[in-house]
């Protein structure tokens, strides 16, 4: 349990979110800490071709906007999306996404600017500048799911969509 504020130079600077969330939920009475997925052998593949020739895609953990529920009990107790992976065209760029039920820092910032977590506009600019080959025609959603088995299954689904769209590399942006 944390009892002292961080002092400059005396504490680890970056927030350890795994430790912070474990302690928080323990204080809320959850006896079993969440066990994060670990992969002894992380997959790694070099770029298949120069980045300037690559089609780049995005995977987000946010969800298409459907309603604002910030502050309601349902947001605290129940997920409010289907938790199924989805695919959505990048054009038009969504003006907003549903993020109410995700654990981003609602005191320090906001998610009104989708570019802060869904970098479609930034990738389009990079493509126009020739930095990347192109932006994938769809972005993919992998809503936060605590089941690692289901997450693995969702990853396979999204991988097939990437193949369908001839995506060379994806950027996963967790929110």
């Amino acid at each position, binding site marked *: 349990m944390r009892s002292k504020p961080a002092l400059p130079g005396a504490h680890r600077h970056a927030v350890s979110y795994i430790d912070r969330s474990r302690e928080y939920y323990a*204080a809320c009475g959850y006896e079993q800490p969440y066990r994060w997925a670990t*992969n002894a052998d*992380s997959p790694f593949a*070099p770029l298949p071709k120069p980045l300037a020739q690559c089609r780049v895609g995005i995977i987000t953990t946010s969800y298409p906007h459907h309603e604002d529920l910030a502050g309601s009990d349902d947001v605290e107790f*129940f*997920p409010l999306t289907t938790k199924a992976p989805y695919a959505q065209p990048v054009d038009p760029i969504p003006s907003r996404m549903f993020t109410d039920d995700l654990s981003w*820092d609602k005191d*320090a910032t906001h998610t009104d600017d989708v570019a*802060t977590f869904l970098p479609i506009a*930034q990738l389009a600019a990079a493509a126009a500048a020739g930095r990347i080959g192109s932006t994938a025609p769809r972005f993919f959603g992998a809503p936060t799911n605590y089941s690692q088995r289901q997450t693995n299954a969702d990853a396979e689904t999204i991988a097939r969509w990437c193949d369908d769209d001839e995506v060379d590399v994806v950027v996963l942006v967790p929110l």
Partner: protein
Amino acid sequence: MPRFLFVDYPLGNPCGRPDDVEDQAAVLEETLTLLESATAPRTTVQSASVWTTEPAADIAWRANYMEIRPENLDDMRAWGDARRTAQATAPGRPR
């Protein structure tokens, strides 16, 4: 994890500061550079972007996230109890 760009911002804005196109472009460029330069799994690079240079504000957002205060412990436990009860009594709803 193949490659990871760590942006030391409050959770919610991993691709750059709100309404700051320059910062967002800079974070993307760091991402693309990492894609090109990494040669091993778990390659981790910290973004050069800084949320705030004001020391007190920097400490505050880091300390406040999911902060546990002794005076809030009873409320936190009550919240946890309510959540567990709600989820246990609502069969079929996802957890």
